[in-house]
């Protein structure tokens, strides 16, 4: 497994998209933190303000993770990979692990970088990370990014095409999850169980009518990722490479 992890690490970092994505994700999150910090007036800056750009980073990381697998299909390197290591499950799990670790690192650097940036602009007592909710809001970003990247790799494996996978991965959290809310009657109930909405509750607090507490929310999000990953492994094993 360590060999496989090393192989996947080399493959990931010898292409340009992870570097671009890391750069973009950090630029967007920290940049927005600075923007919000500098333009803020009325009331003290809070920890929540610092994490304004979280979703930008999340989308960029999702795209990066999907590309990590779809570019393999595009350039047929997936065949070379399966030829070198015929155990497809191990290969894909190793890839997912490497991508998830990178996503987690990007998430933590983005979150704490954003926090430091706003703190430097106006570091009042509201900016201190004290409660469990504060910690989840900042340190939790890495966890959410990592799980989201697992979803991306799974969707990328299933769809095999960059354009399709990315469209799904962006349209789902940005559009579908928001729009279902508007369906009269049942919309709100469906919305409560949408994976990215639930992940958001882990970070930003659950609110009065959430069906789950913060950690249960994260577990639910991870469960969705696990189901998708297993489905993609089954499909990849059955399909011609």
């Amino acid at each position, binding site marked *: 497994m360590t060999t496989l992890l090393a192989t996947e690490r080399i493959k990931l970092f010898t292409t340009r998209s992870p570097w671009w994505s890391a750069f973009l994700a950090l630029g967007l999150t920290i940049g927005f933190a600075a*923007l919000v910090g500098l333009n803020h*007036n009325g009331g003290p800056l809070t920890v929540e303000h610092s994490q304004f750009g979280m979703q930008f980073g999340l989308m960029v990381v999702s795209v990066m993770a999907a590309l990590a697998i779809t570019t393999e299909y595009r350039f047929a390197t997936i065949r070379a990979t399966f030829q070198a290591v015929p155990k497809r499950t191990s290969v894909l799990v190793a890839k997912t692990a490497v991508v998830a670790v990178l996503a987690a690192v990007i998430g933590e650097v983005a979150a704490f970088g954003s926090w430091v940036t706003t703190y430097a602009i106006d570091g009042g007592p509201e900016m201190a990370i004290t409660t469990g909710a504060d910690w989840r809001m900042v340190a939790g970003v890495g966890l959410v990014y990592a799980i989201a990247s697992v979803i991306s790799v799974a969707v990328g494996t299933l769809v095999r095409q960059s*354009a399709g996978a990315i*469209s799904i991965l962006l349209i789902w959290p*940005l559009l579908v999850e928001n*729009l279902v809310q508007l369906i*009269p009657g*049942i919309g709100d109930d469906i919305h409560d169980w949408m994976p990215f909405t639930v992940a958001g509750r882990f970070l930003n607090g659950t609110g009065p009518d959430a069906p789950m507490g913060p950690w249960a929310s994260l577990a639910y999000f991870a469960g969705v990722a696990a189901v998708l990953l297993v489905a993609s492994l089954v499909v990849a094993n059955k399909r011609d490479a």
Partner: protein
Amino acid sequence: MTLLAVERIKLFTTRSPWWCTLIALVLTIGFGALMAGTSDEAIAPLNVAATQFGYGFGLVVVMVMATLAITTEYRFSTIRATFLAVPNRPSTLVAKATVVAVLAAVVGEIAAFGSWGIAGAIKPNVDLAINTAYEWRAVAGVGLVYALSAVVAVAVGVLIRHSAGAIAVLLIWNQLVEPLVQLIPRVGDDIHKWMPFNIANKLVTGNPDPTTRDVLQGPPPSDAVLGPWPAIGVFAAFAAVLLGIAIVVANRRDA
């Protein structure tokens, strides 16, 4: 004219435009049906604008279709075959943008009237007659917004040349940057008023009299300060400028 025919052949002899068209129609009309089926006369009675809830879905799918129309040319280097056959790059790209925009417009109109029609079929007792100028814009305006957005997407595709990058930029811009900008303290609202897609939405969601328009009645309203027609004019200008930049770049660049 020849170039339009060429681009039409190229577009319709691949599969992605068909798929995107199908998905766009199913999503928009499906959403229209869903809204109609679940609407409750007592709480928020169905109206013409509310049938267009799937408008945003259709828009992103159409933009993906438009992006792919050009980025797949770069991906498979058929853009080189194209420039060999027609070395006049500006006319080729204008022809492509035109064909894609026309398809987007057609998809938009079918989606809009389809959603409206299916809602009427599901709730025959609700008055869904299109009478006012606002109602006409809310339905017939969809095609125009889709067409201009498709031009924007083609321009971005020419500039970025990669499907993944171009789609990510367009969707993140349309769905994330524009709404989130609003939340930036102090300046956010003013920036948001001039964001291109927000301006474009004014044509479809802009009601001269906001008091008669409930948020639940249709896609989220635009807060652009321009009137509906000046707004779409500005968006058209934005699309034209982007396309112009893309053409200049493509003309200078090695194919």
